[in-house]
Structure formats: C-alpha cells, structure tokens
C-alpha cells in the first residue's frame, strides 16, 4: 500500500501543481518516481523531522499542499509539538505520512514499532486521521488528502497487503464512514488498518456469521451511522494494530458513549477492544508473530 499511495500521489501531483513532498531521508525505492517527475516539488530535508515539519508549515503558508514522509514514529511523535503548533494551530495544509504501522517493521525493534501514533494524532484539533487497510483504501487516502485543505495524517502499513475492496467511490471514503467488507448478524468486527487481513482470515474459519467492516478514518464519526450501528448489532469488536489507550477502539467508545449520554443512542452496545495491551514488545519478530504475541486475534477475545 506504501507504493500505491505514493504512485497515486504522483499521478495526482501531475494535475495538482501545489502538491509538495518532503521526506526525512527515507523512502529509498519508493519516492524516486515522485522525485524524478517533480524535482521542484520534492525535498529530502535530511534526518531532521522537526525541521521537516516546520519547513512543511512554511511551504503550506505560501500555498503548497505539503506531504511529509518518513517511518512510523519519526514524522509523528518525534516532532509532535511542531505538528500541534505549527501545523494544527495554524491550520496549515500539511499531511503527515508515516509508513510502517504497528509491527510492520517488527524485527527492527521498539524504535520502529508504531503503536501510539493514532492516540497522539487524534488528540490534535483539526487533524484528520486516516488508516488505510488495503491498496484501494491507500489510493483513496491519497485522493482524499490531496483534496482536503488542512492537517492530515496517513498511517500506512508497508507492502504486500491483498486487495480487500473493489474500487472505492470518494463518497464511500470519508471521515465518519465505514466500509463493509462482508455482512453478518449480531456481532460486528470493526477494524482499522491492515490488521483486517489476518482478522478476515480468522473470521472465515471461526466466525463466519459475523459482519466485518473497515474504518479508514479514526474520529469524526457520523452520528447517524453510529446510531444505526448501535441498533443493528448487539456486539461490536474493534481491532487495531495499536495500543489500547487512546486508539481506534477508544475513539469509537467515546463517540458511542457521548451519543448515549446525549440521549441519541437508546442502548449502549457491548464493545470489546482488541488492541496492544499498553506494553512495549521488546522481542524481535515478524509482523504476524508480534500481532499474535500482542493478542491481536479474535481467538484471544473472552467470548
């Protein structure tokens, strides 16, 4: 999905002459097509993510639609305050793109495990948080972020994700909306990001009657969609390759609880969250190994 996102961005940059891409000295064999086609709208700022974010803000104020790109924690947590203050507070047209969601860089250690970024990014006012699940969602994410004016965050897995959806219409792919993968009764599994693939596999053998949807955005939920969801399902299982605290599941519970408190939702659905249990995993391991170790399987649910 990383290549799909960048290639789509590349195609869109051809029509949208304001698209500018900055990278923090990462992106070998991924960013070259953009750099070659648009040398005047590409800069490698070196290994300096704080400055990358500041430069992005400076370019954006002069009219550019700026994308910053690096691995996981580097364009996000490393420069959190620059994102908060120079991007979000100034409503700068800057999109932060992080590659290597969750345990995508599993064997490389905790420095490369991106497991708190959703919580951090969704805490920021104005930030649109997008977590694509497959190449189709990644493609739609690029299109959404090119057309969106203001701060955005795109959390990409890495590579090799199979295609989950048919072609997505822009109306399907926007904050607050979910995308159906398959219908079912009683229990809805709602996932964000590339973890959907292992969950879908597990579901087809173990829980064939359950529904599966993806949530390509975290936050900004559409109240009517949530109310319908609360009425249609007795149980919701959220799944994310991110820690429990402050993540996707948290965001959904907050939104449901607020609707319930406001009297718009008559019954609070039973929500179970599958997420990393607020720990650092110090061992090496493939993405699949670490997902299992962190309990990111439906089998680990207390049902």
């Amino acid at each position: 999905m990383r290549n799909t996102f960048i290639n789509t961005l590349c195609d869109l940059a051809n029509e949208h002459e304001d698209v500018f891409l900055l990278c923090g000295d990462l992106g070998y064999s991924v960013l070259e097509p953009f750099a070659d086609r648009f040398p005047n709208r590409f800069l490698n700022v070196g290994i300096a993510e704080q400055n990358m974010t500041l430069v992005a803000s400076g370019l954006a104020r002069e009219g550019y639609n700026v994308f910053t790109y690096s691995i996981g924690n580097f364009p996000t947590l490393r420069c959190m305050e620059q994102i908060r203050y120079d991007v979000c507070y100034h409503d700068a047209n800057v999109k932060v793109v992080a590659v290597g969601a969750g345990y995508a860089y599993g064997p490389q250690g905790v420095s490369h495990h991106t497991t708190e970024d959703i919580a951090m990014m969704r805490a920021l006012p104005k930030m649109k948080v997008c977590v694509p699940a497959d190449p189709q969602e990644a493609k739609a994410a690029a299109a959404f972020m090119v057309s969106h004016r203001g701060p955005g965050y795109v959390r990409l897995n890495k590579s090799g994700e199979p295609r989950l959806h048919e072609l997505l219409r822009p109306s399907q792919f926007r904050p607050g909306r979910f995308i159906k993968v398959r219908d079912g009764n009683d229990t809805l599994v709602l996932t964000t990001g590339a973890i959907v693939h292992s969950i879908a596999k597990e579901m087809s053998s173990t829980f064939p009657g359950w529904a599966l949807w993806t949530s390509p955005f975290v936050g900004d939920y559409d109240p009517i969609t949530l109310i319908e969801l609360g009425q249609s399902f007795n149980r919701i299982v959220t799944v994310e390759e991110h820690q429990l605290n402050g993540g996707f599941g948290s965001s959904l519970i907050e939104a449901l609880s607020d609707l319930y408190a406001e009297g718009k939702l008559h019954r609070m659905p039973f929500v179970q969250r599958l997420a990393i249990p607020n720990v650092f995993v110090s061992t090496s391991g493939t993405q699949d190994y670490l997902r299992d170790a962190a309990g990111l399987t439906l089998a680990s649910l207390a049902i």
Partner: protein
Amino acid sequence: MIDYVEFSRLIRLKALDMCHKKRTSHIGGAFSVADILAVLYGGFLNVDPDAPCDPERDRVFYSKGHACTALYAALGIRGFFNDADLLTDFTRDGSYFTSHVNHRVPGVELSTGSLGHALGVACGCAVALQEQKRSNLVVTILSDGELDEGSNWEAILFAAHHRLDNLVAIVDYNKIQSFGAVEDIMNLEPLADKFRSFNWEVEQVDGHNHVSVQSALARFRSSHSRRPKCLIAHTVKGKGVDFMEGRLAWHYQSPSDDEYRRARMQLELFNA
C-alpha cells in the same frame, strides 16, 4: 521613514505600560529587541498595515514570542490594529492578544512561544518564495537562549544547504536566558564563527544602534551571495532602564508602581 529613536522609545513605553498594567513577564527581552523592531517596522520592511497579507510583503517570523509586548507595540504604533485599545486588550479574557504572540493578531505571521519553531517555518517560506521567483525577504527574530533548541540547528543546516539567500535571521543576543547568563547555562560562543562555519553570511552589530542595524540589513537585502544571512545583534537585556539593564530578574518580574514611574521617567527623558 519613521524616526527610529522616537519609534523605539514609544515601543518601550508601550511595552512598559502593558507589563505593568497586566502584570506580565519578559520586559527585559522586549526592551532588548525594541531597537531592532523599530528599524524593521520603521521603514526597512516592506509591509503595509492596511494589507497585512499582501503576497508582496516581506515575511517576519518572530521567534521570541515571549517578548510579545515589543512586537504588539510596534505593530500597534504602525497601525496594524487600533493602538488605543492595545493596553486594554492585552491578555484580556477573550482577546487574541495573548502574552506569547498570536497569529490571530493582524501583522503577526506566526504564533510562537514555544522556542525553536520560527526559523524552520521561515526556511519553508523562503524555499516557496524562491520557487515562485519572488524577491521578498523572509526575516526571523530569534532569542539567544532559544539557540539551545536542536530544531534551530536543523534549520541552520537546511538554510545553508538550500542556499536561502532570501532568509535573514536576527539574533537578539542579550546574553541572558531564562535561568541565568547564556555563557553559564549553555555557551553559544563563538556564535558568529558557528554560523559562518555553517555557510551563513554573518554580520555583528550593536543591536541598539539603529543606523548599524539598518545598514547591515540593507546590505543583506542587496547581497545575492547564495547564503542565508545572520545578523548577530549584541543587545542589553532591559535596555533603556538602568535598574533593569543586564538583570535576570526582569525576565520574570513585572514592574511595581514605583518601578513603573521610575522606568517611565527614564524612558521619557531619554533623548527627549
């Protein structure tokens, strides 16, 4: 052209009024930068109070946002907003005049207050203006203490590498930072050599000598050296009021009624 001496005196008087009336801090850093702001807003900069967002303006990124009183005073006197309301509005509940500069105020390009942000933003702006073949100058005003922030050194490398000769960084080198003397907390010397070795064009001036500041900036504007420019302005914290000059306490303290009267008297007599 505005009389720089008179303009800087008015900036200091206004900043003194604000710090006294609203019991706010950082008068020392406001007084050290007052003469630099008088030159910038008194004629050097191409800015129009009636069109603060004119694309043809020079951009100013005021990194030492804590010394807000001096910038608000300068902008108010130049007519970016109604100067008469400033004393009331400053830090009033519901007003945009926060005690670290706020871009909601006309003429303020960037909110600052967290240090080490403006130079990087100025770099991005300078890249954009070069790309768009605009000749406007991008000016950023830094404090000395904030050069401790690593983000500034990322930006200093970047500016030189990308040959941003439309970028001017002015360091208000008043030698005192938050908790003591710069040389004791985190020595910057040899500061000019540091910038030169990073491939910047550097000038050092007495930051209270309007003619020197103005001439150095004018040389920078006409120089196309393909290097970013740094003006190290040697200043005195609390400049203009004898009992504030060079004293750390005035990074925090707001003047008592008696101190206010004495300070006012000194500033009014100065060059009167």
